[in-house]
């Protein structure tokens, strides 16, 4: 009698194969099922990583196939870590990373808090607010270059409307002091809705009964916010910080489109610098070492952060 789909499959299996499978242990069968995934993981992730580490100890250049490849030891690592330009790009990346996360979390949480209150048109506002994150980063970078144009850009007009003066008196992407903020503002405009959505999910996951209990205990709104809302939304906030941190560490398209890394090196983030080394200068060995350093940095920071996140969740 055939009852279940598994029975049907068993019945359909040819006898010679069925005989072979009957002789296999559960562990072996499990390995057979898992093997393709492991093979793919090795081929797509692990092998390239090992190969990159190997290349990082050589002077290999992918555009010079005829040149002899020399083992240079730690020279690439030494050159990267002692290069003042590398540290400048690290500083630019840190500035971008910290300020985008701070602004996006603050504004995103505030928006989520407002949207969590029940009011008419709530859904419509949510849709409008998430619109920027639906756009391509390259498109966003491109149209922010127009917004920042001193002669025709809306941004300069809005700023000078409040501060007075001539809109063409300052250039957001041409000024060494303003350009780092120009990329922070554009990224914040684009990705705050993402943080907002995560925060909104966190806020909506807090049961109303907790607030009702606090009301019974005559806790003020301010106290409810700090003792209920923030602690219960914290794991979501931390998750948003993790996502935005990882994403912004590898930020490339929006900034390239907006400033090209300039003026000078002011907005050259590590990902832009790495791309130039690897695919414009074709210094494959050097850029492999650079990639390894960045990988270790991101992996290390993310690991520490995930541990902290788990501790918060356990509380």
């Amino acid at each position, binding site marked *: 009698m055939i009852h279940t789909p598994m029975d049907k499959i068993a019945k359909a299996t040819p006898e010679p194969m069925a005989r072979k499978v009957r002789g296999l242990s559960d562990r072996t069968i499990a390995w057979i099922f898992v093997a393709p995934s492991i093979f793919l993981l090795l081929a797509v992730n692990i092998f390239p990583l090992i190969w990159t580490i190997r290349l990082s100890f050589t002077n290999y250049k992918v555009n010079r196939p005829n040149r002899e490849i020399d083992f240079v030891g730690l020279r690439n690592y030494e050159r990267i870590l002692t290069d003042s330009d590398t540290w400048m790009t690290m500083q630019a990346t840190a500035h971008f990373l910290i300020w985008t996360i701070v602004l996006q979390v603050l504004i995103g949480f505030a928006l989520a808090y407002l949207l969590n209150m029940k009011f008419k048109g709530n859904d419509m506002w949510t849709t409008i607010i998430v619109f920027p994150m639906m756009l391509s980063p390259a498109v966003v970078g491109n149209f922010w270059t127009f917004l*920042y144009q001193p002669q025709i850009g809306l941004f300069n007009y809005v700023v000078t409307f409040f501060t007075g003066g001539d809109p063409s008196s300052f250039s957001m992407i*041409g000024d060494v002091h303003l350009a780092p903020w120009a990329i922070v503002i554009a990224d914040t405009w684009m990705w705050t809705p993402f943080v907002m959505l995560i925060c909104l999910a966190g806020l909506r996951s807090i049961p109303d009964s907790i607030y009702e209990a606090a009301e019974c205990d005559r806790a003020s709104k301010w106290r409810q916010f700090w003792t209920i809302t923030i602690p219960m939304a914290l794991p979501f906030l931390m998750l948003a910080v993790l996502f935005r941190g990882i994403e912004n560490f590898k930020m490339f398209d929006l900034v390239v489109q907006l400033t090209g890394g300039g003026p000078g090196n002011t907005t050259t983030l590590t990902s832009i610098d790495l791309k130039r080394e690897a695919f414009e200068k074709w210094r494959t060995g050097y850029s492999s070492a650079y990639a390894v350093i960045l990988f270790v940095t991101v992996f290390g920071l993310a690991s520490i952060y995930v541990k902290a996140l788990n501790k918060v969740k356990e509380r």
Partner: protein
Amino acid sequence: MKTQLKLSVATAAVMAVSGAASAEDLTLCWASWDPANALIELSKDFEEKSGHTMNFEFVPWPNFADRMLNELNSGGKLCDLMIGDSQWIGGGAENGHYVKLNDFFDAEGITMDDFIPATVTGYAEWPKNTPNYWALPAFGDVVGWTYRKDWFERPELQAEFKEKYGRDLDVPNSLDELKDIAQFFQGRDIDGTTVYGAAIYTERGSEGITMGVTNALYNYGFEYGNPDSPYELDGFVNSEDAVAGLEFYKDLYDTATPPGSSNWYMGENIDAYKSGQVALQMNFAFIWPGVEADANVGGGKSGYFPNPAGPNGQFAQLGGQGISVVSYSDKQDAALEYIKWFAQPEIQSRWWELGGYSALKAVVEDPGFATSQPYAQTFLDSMAIVKDFWAEPAYAELLLAMQQRVHDYVIAGNGTAEEALNGLVDDWTETFEDEGKI
């Protein structure tokens, strides 16, 4: 008779079949810009005559080098013909991307003596100044200047300029005069609109600011190295004259360019000029047909002049490209056929008519050439004073180092011109050491 007829039909059939079998689908790779459209039009004649089909892969300039060098470095078969930038010739030859064309030229009677010498050196030879050819000069180009002739001719502006500078408002004879003119127009109200002096190259990401600043550096005395010892850089790249040239470019940027023009290259300069924002624009000659045809600034409203002289000579940055056969192509014979067709004087003449800048002497030395277009004489004068950037296999490293150093000083205002050029010497020295050249 019947047998003869059968034989004729059979012969015709065999010829038709063999003809069809040799018809190839060729792909030509180039940048996406106006001349590329002209080439599509021109190539219809080749398709008709040869039976081959032409396909085109055009990539916008900011991504052109990335995309195409990736293609070459990976041994890709996408491109059978490549109109590659002049600086790629060293890498194309040494890394085996391009087919050497000497034997082909000899067999087909194509001689480089028939082309403008600067284009042969710039687009075809590697090593430079040796008779080893890897491309046929395809598109002559050079940085020059476009100006608003209609503004220059206004009596009130002429009078004000004469009073201020003691000379006529006319095409500048020197870089200093050019700066005066640009400063004169900076922030001026013309027909109720605020206009600015000059749109110059300032782009950071690819090659923009280098292609611009060299027009000042060369004329002030910058050299790529000791003429007697090619990779000796110190004292040539960062000479006092070179420092003065870099300071000139920064001053021009600071005092005579539109606000917000900190990352401008060909496209942005064209837009600024055509929209009436600037009195002058620095740009490659390829834009001139488009300027002449433009409703706002064409039809006699614009004039053209070569890069003006500096204290130590008159030079202009070479642009342009040669056409090469990609060594990874399986259709090299058909690709060579295209080059043979393209090199013909009548095709080159038609190329110029369509808006392509021919480098063939028979075209540019024709008595009617100089007056054939308002910019034709300027093109000839400019091609006579060209200098090019490094064409070494490691040109990209050299270029990106210069982009960074120059942008950091001119646009970001960090450090001094001397520090920027000293830094450049260090960067280039490191590259040449890595390359085993020094």
